[in-house]
């Protein structure tokens, strides 16, 4: 099962690079995405399986992240077909400067999308922290060419930043892995193995100082990739310059994978009785990310950067939720699902708006409601969802995290958490609602209309995030509870 999950997208990626026909390649992309989704659904039906000491195994947390990744990828693949079909092939004027630019080869784009899926799948099934590291670095490499699809100097700058900052971050995480192996080498039965099951079983014998240092390094390393402030600097640039469908995948799927790296380290520290040390670090970094994101969200003139900073904020929420422990862990994992669905939808819609208006400026885009009515309605709904308003899913998950903070007697964390949420709400609501209303500016005439291939994927995501706010199906609830137990929350 795991082999099929990994090989299907990897082989399809190779085929995509070789195919000459665009139509066939797009069909392959969608077919692979749906096959992957079907395999993941089958895996969900059978539940976590495999011997605990195996290197590749589906455990409850990995299953959750894999499920979210696969759903988002399937939706994004369908959107990508609509997107690629309407991209011009010839050099066209840049939207911000008086220069021309062209797109990279579509074969490379599709191939890298599929490799990206394969590497993210590997992250979710890795039970050996060494393999996990290899997989996370591979996600960076598979996604870098995607960011450079529009070949102009801004995307080049964004790709360079992404590649270098994330590679350095991941190198730090490798050092963290070595520190962890060092911590595991102490004691009579010390094996130095990085298999999660063995690390947790032998956790009481781990050397405390090496272990703490290892967690700090892993948090910094994977935190860079996850976009936790102050290591997030690559994130807004990459999300703003990448094609919107790639931004949706980066934000909704890739960041979760990096988060999984931190969760694995947190599991080990929790088992070793150092959960409080790790939790406090996570809470501090999470709150700092939320604060910084709120500052940059307010008065942000570029709507794709606005969404990117919102991702920094939500990664902060996840870190706080996990760090609080107890009931908040359930909330954080539910929030992971909600954020991916809502942010994926918003980035896809941002792509529609960008295609019609050819501008990323929140000040210049007006009257989306009149030009793209479906996109506009979903954009407003997405705004409510991502800022945690009822009746959408994120409201519920944020409420659970706040309840966890109150139950755990963290008054300062509770107050700051709510304060930053409110700031982000105000900062996002004003520009995003203004875009929907009014009349299009005469100097910026929009062109185009809602197309079902680029709207339907967003509708699916929007309905799911609404559904999660009203009713959590029992199978998802069970999966979330199992995952929360593994991470170390009630």
């Amino acid at each position, binding site marked *: 099962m795991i082999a099929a999950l990994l090989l299907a997208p990897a082989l399809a990626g190779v085929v995509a690079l070789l195919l000459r026909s665009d139509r066939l390649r797009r069909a392959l992309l969608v077919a692979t995405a749906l096959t992957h989704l079907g395999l993941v659904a089958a895996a969900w039906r059978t539940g976590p399986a495999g011997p605990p000491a195996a290197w590749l195994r589906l455990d409850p947390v990995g299953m959750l992240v894999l499920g979210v990744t696969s759903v988002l990828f399937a939706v994004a693949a369908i959107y990508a077909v609509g997107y690629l079909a309407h991209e011009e092939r010839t050099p066209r004027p840049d939207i911000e400067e008086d220069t021309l630019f062209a797109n990279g080869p579509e074969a490379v784009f599709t191939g890298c999308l599929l490799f990206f899926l394969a590497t993210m799948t590997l992250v979710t099934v890795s039970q*050996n922290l*060494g*393999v996990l*590291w*290899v997989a996370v*670095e*591979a996600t*960076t*490499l598979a996604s*870098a*060419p995607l960011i*450079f699809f529009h*070949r*102009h*100097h*801004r995307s*080049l*700058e*964004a*790709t*360079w*930043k992404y*590649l*270098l900052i994330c*590679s*350095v971050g991941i*190198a730090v995480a*490798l*050092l963290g892995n*070595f520190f962890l*192996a*060092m911590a595991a*080498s*102490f004691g009579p039965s*010390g*094996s*130095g*193995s*990085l298999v999660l099951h063995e690390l947790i079983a032998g956790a009481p014998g781990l*050397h405390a*100082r*090496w272990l703490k240092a290892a967690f700090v390094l892993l948090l910094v390393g994977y935190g860079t990739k996850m976009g936790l402030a102050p290591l997030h600097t690559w994130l*807004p*640039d990459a999300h*703003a*310059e990448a094609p919107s469908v790639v931004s949706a995948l980066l934000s909704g799927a890739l960041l979760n994978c990096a988060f999984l790296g931190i969760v694995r380290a947190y599991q080990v520290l929790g088992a070793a009785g150092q959960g409080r040390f790790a939790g406090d670090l996570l809470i501090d970094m999470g709150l700092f990310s939320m604060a910084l994101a709120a500052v*940059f969200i307010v*008065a*942000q*003139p570029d709507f794709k*950067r606005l969404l990117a900073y919102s991702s920094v904020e939500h990664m902060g929420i996840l870190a706080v939720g996990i760090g609080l422990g107890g009931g908040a862990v359930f909330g954080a994992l539910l929030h992971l699902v909600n954020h991916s669905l809502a942010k994926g939808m918003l980035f896809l819609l941002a792509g529609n708006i960008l295609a019609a208006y050819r501008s990323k400026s929140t*000040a210049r885009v007006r009257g989306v409601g009149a030009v793209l009515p479906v996109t506009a309605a979903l954009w407003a709904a997405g705004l409510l969802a991502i800022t945690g308003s009822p009746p959408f899913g994120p409201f519920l998950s944020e409420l659970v995290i706040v309840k966890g903070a109150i139950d755990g007697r963290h008054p300062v964390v509770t107050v700051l958490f709510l304060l930053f949420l409110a700031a982000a709400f105000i900062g996002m609501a004003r520009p995003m609602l203004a875009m929907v209303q009014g009349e299009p500016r005469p100097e910026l005439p929009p062109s185009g209309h809602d197309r079902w291939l680029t709207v339907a994927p967003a509708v699916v995501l929007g309905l799911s995030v609404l559904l999660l706010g009203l009713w959590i199906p029992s199978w998802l609830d069970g999966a979330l509870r199992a995952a929360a137990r593994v991470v170390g929350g009630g």
Partner: protein
Amino acid sequence: MFEINTLLVGLLLVNFVLLGASRLGTSVRQVAAQGALLSLLTLAEHAGWSAPWRVWLLALGSGVVKAVVFPYFLRRALREADVRREMEPYVGFTASVLVGVTALAASLWLASRLPLPGPVASPLLVPVSLFTLLVGLFLLVSRRKALTQVVGYLVLENGVFCFGLALPEDAPLSVEVGILLDIFAAVFIMGIMIYHISREFDHIDTDRMSSLRDETT
């Protein structure tokens, strides 16, 4: 050939040369030398000639990648970009060497504070690996050229690799090969990006790539 302390001192000296190098060609040559030293070190740590086959495989693999393939990529990028020197780094070359001395002292102190589970091949192994790591980080933040930043990344990675040698137990072969493949692909893609940067900007100074930032309305 497999005298472990000599190799470590060699590694240490290479770091200082890197800190003081103004020519990009020198940086590329030195980082290649570092790769070669590390692969010899891998063998030396595992009983030299009589090392098991998997150690030989890894040492040869990483040696070829780091001492032959990377310098080839980087030198090609250098030719395409047609730049020879690192002009005006953020921190001058003399100051960089002084920073290096401080970093060396810090590494020695830090290594003395970290207990090791068993005997290691040389007491210099951990301090030199930490020093290499710090030099890599410093080169990354203090140099302007995209190429020197890649060199910094490689030095950082070498430092991490060197620290891995101090572990009492080796990582499984598949993981090590995976790590090596990842770094190989990373440098390969970075080389391609440098080529694009030099075509797009007519230079590879990363400080002039500054159009992406947050503006306030």
